[in-house]
């Protein structure tokens, strides 16, 4: 790298104050091409040491004083690598392919893909539904999804596939008919709550290894599905398809359907209910209790837990002080309840990671962000969902460890939520919970990808940006979700703005020259989130 310093007798004077790069160029004419560096202190110009010093300091330099765009690219491979680490995906509509394997609003999706590509989005996420593909047991119809994958490939985008073994109510995408039919005669394949109500949107984790599906276990059925997917989409694997999320439960998330009754609008989310009352779960509990020498504890779930939409204090189980959750019984029950969830996760993730282990795709699983009541000691929402995480116990250790064991990555939703927008009475703290999970994952070297809960949450985009670019940046983020609202004039411009700001960190107004063209050019090479353009 050529370094030259141009000095003139008057330079010392000029350099006293900070000079705009334009001024510099005025002083030295055009002779300072881009490979030359000017330091503010003319006597200490030493390129290499200077730059390395910059790097140690987190690469802080002022745009004004140093004109070093090409250096960034050529000299620091780390920079360019981290550049493409920041990947943004956008979710396709949940019903992109629905009943009968037809692609819905293909034209809109086509236009949308083009728009996203132009925006510089990395790829799209495609939910692939069990209920759409496997209409007859063991017979898979992938035609609709193949068509979408081709569209995505043509658009030059990447594809992240979410394998959905659950059902959706809005838009309505049910489980495969043959599964529903089995469920009608054999309701114990579904989760049940204390009142015996069944949750029919996904299978109970207790039947994973029971041959309840016409002689096959659900895990075997999932396996068949995944293998068929793999062979059908093999031309796309690793090139267009870069990631796969394994559906792990309700809404694809690793959890119990503890909150499936949606809170009435305007009211605060309740604590949810334990879902351990279907025959198979009760059997497991009974075995566990007997093995632990407390057979009486295996007869049912906690008797003093509140119901779905009640607050923690409305019964004694989750009370902050002296709640049963802190009793030996509480510990017994919660340990069992959460370990069943982790084992279930382990069963499915080891399955997919063995199936897709020989491809270049990354395998993900989604962990929910049960943030309400996080500020209480018991964290009841997390407990009912199956995460034994309280003020005194980090329940995500086991989860992260399980993901690490299967070399899977975690998708965390709710990156758009900020504490200040939560209802005060909910004692909720999405930010703290997110931080806790992420720290735990870091510890176990599990990579975390982000997702938002809903588009249009107040301050959502800002919060996402904070999470993506903050101290501990996220390498992949999936923005949910394409549809009418996504492209509406109320939303799309702000999304565009968001995407552009991700690749171009904000500059202090001072650093924006009058011709913005120049600004954009200088900035493009600095879009590495690690580099903070210092606003001098």
């Amino acid at each position, binding site marked *: 790298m050529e370094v030259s310093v141009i000095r003139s007798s008057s330079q010392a004077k000029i350099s*006293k104050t900070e000079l705009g790069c334009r001024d510099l160029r005025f002083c030295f004419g*055009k002779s300072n091409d881009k490979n030359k560096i000017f330091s503010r202190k003319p006597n200490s110009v030493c390129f290499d040491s200077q730059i390395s010093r910059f790097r140690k300091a987190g690469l802080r330099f002022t745009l004004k004083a140093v004109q070093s765009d090409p250096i960034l690219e050529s000299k620091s491979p780390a920079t360019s690598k981290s550049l493409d680490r920041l990947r943004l995906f956008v979710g396709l509509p949940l019903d992109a392919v629905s009943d009968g394997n037809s692609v819905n609003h293909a034209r809109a999706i086509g*236009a949308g893909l083009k728009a996203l590509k132009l925006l510089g989005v990395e790829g799209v996420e495609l939910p692939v539904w069990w209920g759409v593909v496997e209409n007859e047991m063991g017979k898979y119809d992938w035609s609709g999804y193949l068509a979408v994958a081709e569209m995505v490939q043509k658009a030059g985008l990447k594809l992240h596939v979410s394998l959905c073994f659950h059902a959706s109510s809005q838009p309505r995408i049910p489980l495969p008919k043959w599964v529903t039919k089995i469920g009608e005669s054999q309701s114990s394949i579904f989760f049940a709550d204390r009142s015996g109500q069944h949750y029919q949107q996904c299978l109970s984790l207790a039947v994973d290894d029971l041959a309840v599906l016409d002689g096959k276990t659900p895990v075997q059925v999932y396996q068949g599905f995944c293998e068929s997917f793999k062979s059908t989409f093999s031309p796309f694997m690793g090139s267009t398809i870069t990631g796969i999320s394994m559906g792990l439960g309700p809404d694809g998330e690793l959890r119990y359907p503890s909150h499936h009754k949606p809170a009435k609008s305007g009211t605060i989310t309740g604590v949810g209910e334990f879902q351990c009352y279907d025959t198979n779960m009760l059997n497991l509990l009974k075995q566990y209790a007997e093995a632990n020498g407390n057979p009486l504890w295996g007869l049912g779930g906690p008797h003093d837990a509140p119901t779905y939409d009640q607050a923690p204090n409305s019964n004694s189980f989750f009370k902050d002080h002296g709640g049963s959750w802190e009793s030996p019984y509480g510990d017994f029950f919660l340990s069992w309840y959460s370990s069943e969830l982790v084992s279930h996760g382990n069963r499915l993730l080891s399955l997919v990671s063995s199936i897709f282990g020989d491809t270049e795709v990354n395998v993900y699983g989604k962990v929910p962000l049960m943030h309400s009541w996080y500020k209480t000691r018991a964290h009841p929402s997390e407990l009912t969902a199956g995460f034994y995480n309280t003020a005194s116990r980090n329940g995500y250790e086991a989860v992260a460890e399980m993901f690490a064991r299967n070399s899977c990555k975690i998708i965390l939703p709710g990156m758009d939520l900020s504490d200040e927008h939560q209802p005060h009475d909910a004692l909720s703290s999405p930010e703290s919970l997110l931080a806790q999970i992420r720290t735990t994952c870091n510890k176990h070297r599990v990579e975390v990808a982000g997702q938002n809960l809903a588009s249009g949450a107040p301050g959502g985009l800002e919060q996402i940006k904070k999470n993506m670019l903050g101290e501990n940046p996220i390498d992949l983020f999936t923005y949910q979700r394409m549809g*009418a609202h996504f492209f509406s004039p109320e939303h799309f411009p702000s999304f565009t703005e968001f995407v552009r700001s991700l690749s171009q960190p904000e500059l202090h107004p001072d650093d924006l020259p009058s011709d913005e063209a120049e600004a954009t050019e200088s900035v493009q090479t600095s879009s590495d989130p690690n580099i903070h353009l210092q606003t001098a």
Partner: protein
Amino acid sequence: MAAVTIDSLLQNPTLVFRPKAKVLLKPPRSLDCSRNRKLPLSRGSCLCSFNPRRTIHVVRASSSETALIGNFDISSSDDILYKDIFPVKRIEKVEGKFFIRLDRSKDQHDWQLTVGCSLPGKWILHWGVSYLGDSGSEWDQPPKGMRPPGSIPIKDYAIETPLKKLSEGDIFHEVKIDFNPISEIAAIHFVLKDEETGAWYQHRGMDFKVPLVDYLEDDGNIVGAKRGFGVWSGALQQFSNVLLKSEASHADSQNNSIESKDSKNKNRCLEGFYEEQSIVKEVSVGNLVSVAVRKSPETGKVIVCLETDIPGDVVVHWGVCRDDAKIWEIPAAPYPPETTVFKNKALRTLLQPKATGNRSGALFTLDEEHFGFLFVLKLDDNTWLKFKENDFYVPLLGTSSVPGLYGQSDSTSEEISSKSYTDGIINEIRNLVSGLSSEKSQKTKKKEVQESILQEIEQLAAEAYSIFRSSITTVPDEVVSETETTKPAVKISSGTGTGFEILCQGFNWESHKSGRWYMELKEKASEISSLGFTVIWLPPPTESVSPEGYMPKDLYNLNSRYGTIDELKELVKSLHEVGMKVLGDVVLNHRCAHFKNQNGVWNIFGGRLNWNDRAVVADDPHFQGRGNKSSGDNFHAAPNIDHSQEFVRKDLKEWLGWLREEIGYDGWRLDFVRGFWGGYVKDYLEASGPYFAVGEYWDSLSYTYGEMDHNQDSHRQRIVDWINATNGTAGAFDVTTKGILHSALERCEYWRLSDQKGKPPGVVGWWPSRAVTFIENHDTGSTQGHWRFPGGKEMQGYAYILTHPGTPAVFYDHIFSHHRSEIASLISVRNRNGIHCRSLVKIVKAERDVYAAIIDEKVAMKIGPGYYEPPSGSQRWSLALEGRDYKVWETS
């Protein structure tokens, strides 16, 4: 003014000709001249009038990053503190010649007409012929054999042939037209056009006419008679940057050449002639201003050395400043020679010619403590040269400021610039100016690419949105029923549509330029619809004497500058497909004639509606109509139609019916309805049964001592009277509201927005359902700017009209501007809350600096810099959107 030859110009790489610039060169027009745009515009079928032309220099300057320093040696000393070269652009007049020659070709049988021009440019001869027996001033296509190679037919009446240099060394670009004198051709007509600038050279406002037979009527435009040349600009109506110098004396000697005295006996005895005229064109010229700052080693003083190659007297208007605020101050003496003090704020120094070259310069010796040196250049009384709208700035202390990178120009320069209107022009030109150096222009290109990508993204998103949106409404049944209950029963009437209409004006004053507006708009259809517009107003579709369409001629000929009739149908169809209603702009007040009557007055119509002078009102002496007196105001540029005539009304009703049927228009925007009684409009509307109709009733607001009256009741009364006369079958543009918004926003007098009864002061306060509120249209804004909405406050205007009752109309230029997303958000607030044309508005604040209102108890809004928050009572308000000096809330 020095003549500049073309060659040297072209060698200058910085000379980029921007035809758009001419747009900026319009002379100021008086505001009350509201119908200006309808001045007749071509080919002599109507009256013409000229605005006196002023000579303006247009100057632009920008900083350069190129390595010009080396070429421009200012000072040989090496203690330079600062050095820069600013390229500047001036407009210079270039003089040249233009000739017409008629002579016999070599074989002595055929004749040849030669037209040549010595000025640089891309000259095009726009020409046609008239045949023996033709009447009127219509052109026809010349026979094929007459067309020189390279000719392009323009519609069915003209040919365009480029002028070429016969050889490289030639001064003249010329074109030769061979013809046979035995043919039926009576005359050759032409005008000259400069493609580069879009300027038209005409002959006394009409075409040049070379008669080939001797008995043609003299319309006054025969070449060879009393010579006086006029110029029409290509932008028609806009001041052109081309001047044709009238040189009567010069032409005198050739006067007789064409009308040969002995050719009276119809024997087609042609005589050759040669005529030459001076022609002047304005060309932009690049110059350089170089500045160097050095320090005198002896005195310790700072010496600013300024030099330029601008020819002629150049005065530097200068001062110094102490800090970044750049307040002009006068430094202590000594000053350079030829320096005067200007109003105690600045100094003026005449640059002294340098010994070498054509340069002039000056040395300014200043004390060390000054922070910066500020200057502008003055070339003559009207010509100021600034740096990107701002003063030139030279840092003396080597500060961090970047030239041109500071906010407001200081008071001094503002005061100066108000003296001429150069400032405004520079201001506009600034937008067109991109960098001059190649590096910079590359970046600019990059930016342009980026911008076009963004635009494409927006379009794609709009398309996706419209599809997603339409597919959603079919899914959830509950939502539909919910909206049904909140909406009052929809009753469609032509005055209001459904009452929930939001209008988009789908064109501006420039839309005719491309010749394919219909097709361009078609591509935007889904985008416009997705923004929430329900009705779109298309430009006037008929054949018209003026390209914008407001001088209709044959009403049944719908091929216009906007496109063909088929393209129009296609456009209407696509607009219907995306769910919009389409308004046709119909000009019923006046119509341009095809023929002259026996007195030579243009008042006989042709085409399918071949009316005679009985169709023309009697009270405009210009057109000698034999109809009744006008039932309204007269529009003086064309024959006003007498709507009291039964046959006229019958024909017009039939025509409107045909437009509905044939084109698929859903309704009308009625042009200049001041010109005739509203009762006739009622008649037309009842006959054509539109879905929506709105009339343009535009007259002046009342002013006392130059200040607008608070009470504009008489103004809105006149509009309401007209609506009343139509029996409420049509709405009217709420000109009153626009006028009051102007005063309120411009002068920070928001109290104006409430009338004595605490209601909105415009038409919308009296008859909201018939008020079509707007803040700008093709006349008031666009490139005409007859009555432009206060700049930078457009969004306040839209925050007002899009939250208030009445039917809001949004101007095309605003939709496709940076206002777009804010406008879209306002529209969605309006739609979300079901605000309609009869919504109730409660004004809660109308004070000096803030106006606030609550509409239908669902939406609260405020405009103005002052404070307002909606009450925190039983309703919970949440901020829906905010922008510069406005906020809108809705109930949550």
